[in-house]
């Protein structure tokens, strides 16, 4: 008797068919996204079903196939793998071709047609709440002295024929709705039947007391001079905010730059992106997500908490600057207590107050407290050198140890140096001061004195260790 064909093939076909059917029936279902995320589970499901079938045949004493997965099926598997990898590569924000700016070239099907629309106006109170519903395109929102909301702008529609573009334009009017104090801007981009691409660029001016809530699919936001809260979420956006009186929330799935300047309330950034620049923020700052570029924080008055990729830190205040880049973090003039945990990153902290708690996996650490009194320090690294420069008059109790490396000490006999196997320990106290605890598993520890001028001009540090070793 010939073994009947496998059950698995038809089941997989039904599954794939179902996914495409859902896509056809509901336009909001992002099929590429879905496939890009879940395609490996097709392989797992297939393997599991086939395994169950083989077990079943074995138990029921039915004839077994020679191979659980035939040669032709393997070809299909390889095809699925390739297709899945390609789709997921296309969905990634940081692929080389996207970085190289080739995306526009890939999208360039059809011709661009531009339509402007009549500006819309509504009278409002002094502090209206503006809601922009999800749209593709850029938005520039400016607060001013006017009494109402004005929306103007234009649409860019990409289509193969002029007629198609005109029809799309007619289908997607920009509407301004008023509900009490709330004003809604609706671009109706979901009404296009064909898959023509449409971008609606908005220019909105409104009373400066307004608050904003915007959702974007792709496009930049440029917001300035608003006294209320700003809440922006987007699939892909560059966000530039300036002079905001309320709190700011920004949630992006992709972003090239988020820049906030002069914000009075709290700033809360979540999601994925590239660069962040926060300057002159009076409220709390929270950054939580994966931003792959550089993060720069300057003049922040309230506590800061950052959880980005593999680096976490919190500081009470940043009168100076914090720069977090790939592989390095620099803090200058910060108010502690400071906690920092990071993986492979070099850490430099200058001119900090209060206690410091530092956990580094792999990286060199350079610390110059600069000010007196010195705070408590707990510094740990698995692999890397630690260099600590203390003011001449500092009082402290030191415990330093390296398991593999040496210690150099400029504080003389007050600190006792003992070598242990391949490592060394340094213990003792100078005056009565807080505990300084330095531990590295592999690396050299340097404890040195700063000269009086060094606290001011940090540039002079560069030649200091050389002098020390020459003496």
């Amino acid at each position, binding site marked *: 008797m010939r073994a009947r064909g496998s059950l698995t093939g038809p089941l997989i076909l039904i599954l794939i068919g179902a996914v495409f059917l859902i896509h056809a029936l509901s336009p909001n279902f992002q099929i590429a996204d879905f496939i890009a*995320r879940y*395609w*490996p*589970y*097709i*392989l*797992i*499901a*297939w*393997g*599991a*079903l*086939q*395994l169950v079938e*083989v*077990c079943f045949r*074995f138990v029921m004493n039915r004839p*077994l*196939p*020679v*191979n*659980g*997965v*035939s040669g032709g*099926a*393997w070809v299909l*598997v390889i095809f699925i*793998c390739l297709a*899945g990898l390609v789709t*997921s590569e296309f969905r990634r924000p940081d692929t080389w071709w996207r970085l190289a700016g080739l995306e526009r070239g890939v999208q360039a099907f059809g011709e661009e047609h531009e339509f402007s629309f009549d500006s819309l106006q509504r009278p409002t109170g002094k502090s209206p709440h503006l809601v922009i519903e999800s749209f593709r395109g850029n938005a520039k929102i400016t607060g001013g002295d006017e009494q109402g909301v004005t929306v103007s702008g234009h649409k860019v529609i990409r289509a193969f024929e002029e007629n198609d573009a005109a029809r799309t334009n007619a289908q997607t009017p920009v509407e301004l709705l008023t509900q009490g104090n709330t004003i809604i801007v609706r671009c109706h981009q979901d009404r296009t039947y064909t898959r023509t691409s449409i971008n609606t660029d908005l220019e909105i001016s409104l009373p400066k007391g307004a608050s904003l809530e915007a959702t974007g699919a792709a496009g930049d936001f440029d917001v300035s001079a608003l006294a209320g809260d700003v809440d922006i979420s987007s699939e892909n956006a560059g966000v530039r905010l300036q002079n905001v009186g309320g709190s700011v929330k920004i949630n992006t799935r992709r972003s090239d730059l988020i820049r906030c300047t002069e914000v009075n309330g709290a700033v809360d950034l979540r999601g994925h992106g590239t660069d962040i620049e926060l300057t002159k923020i009076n409220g709390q700052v929270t950054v939580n997500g994966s931003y792959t570029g550089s993060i720069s924080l300057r003049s922040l008055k309230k506590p800061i908490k950052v959880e980005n990729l593999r680096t976490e830190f919190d500081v009470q205040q940043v009168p100076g600057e914090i720069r977090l880049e790939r592989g390095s973090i620099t803090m200058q003039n910060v108010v502690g207590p400071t906690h920092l945990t990071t993986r492979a990153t070099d850490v430099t902290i200058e001119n900090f107050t209060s206690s410091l708690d530092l956990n580094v996996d792999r990286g060199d650490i350079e610390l110059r407290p600069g000010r007196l009194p010195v705070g408590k320090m707990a510094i740990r690294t698995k692999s890397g050198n630690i260099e600590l420069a203390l003011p001449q008059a500092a009082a402290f109790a030191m415990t330093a140890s390296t398991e593999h490396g040496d210690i150099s000490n400029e504080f003389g006999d007050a600190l006792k140096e003992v070598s242990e196997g391949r490592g060394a320990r340094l213990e003792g106290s100078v005056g009565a001061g807080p505990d300084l605890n330095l531990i590295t598993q592999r690396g050299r520890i340097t404890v040195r004195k700063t000269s009086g001028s060094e606290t001011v001009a940090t540039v002079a540090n560069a030649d200091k260790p050389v002098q020390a070793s020459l003496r």
Partner: protein
Amino acid sequence: MDNRLALFVQAARGPILLITLGFLFAILQAGIVSFARTWPLILIVIGLTKLIERAVTPQGFVQLPPPPPPGGPLR
């Protein structure tokens, strides 16, 4: 221990490999570990199934030769 058990193990190898492959791609997708670091697992799984197959094959039992390619012998 009979031929049937050996055939079963042989038939189960494909699906097990498929599940492993899917699993590796799934964790790659989730951004946990890159494929460059996990691919040896595939070799290990192949090796393990071969080992089990060998263990359950009775002494002196000749494995079925693979089916000839459809276009006849290669040369």
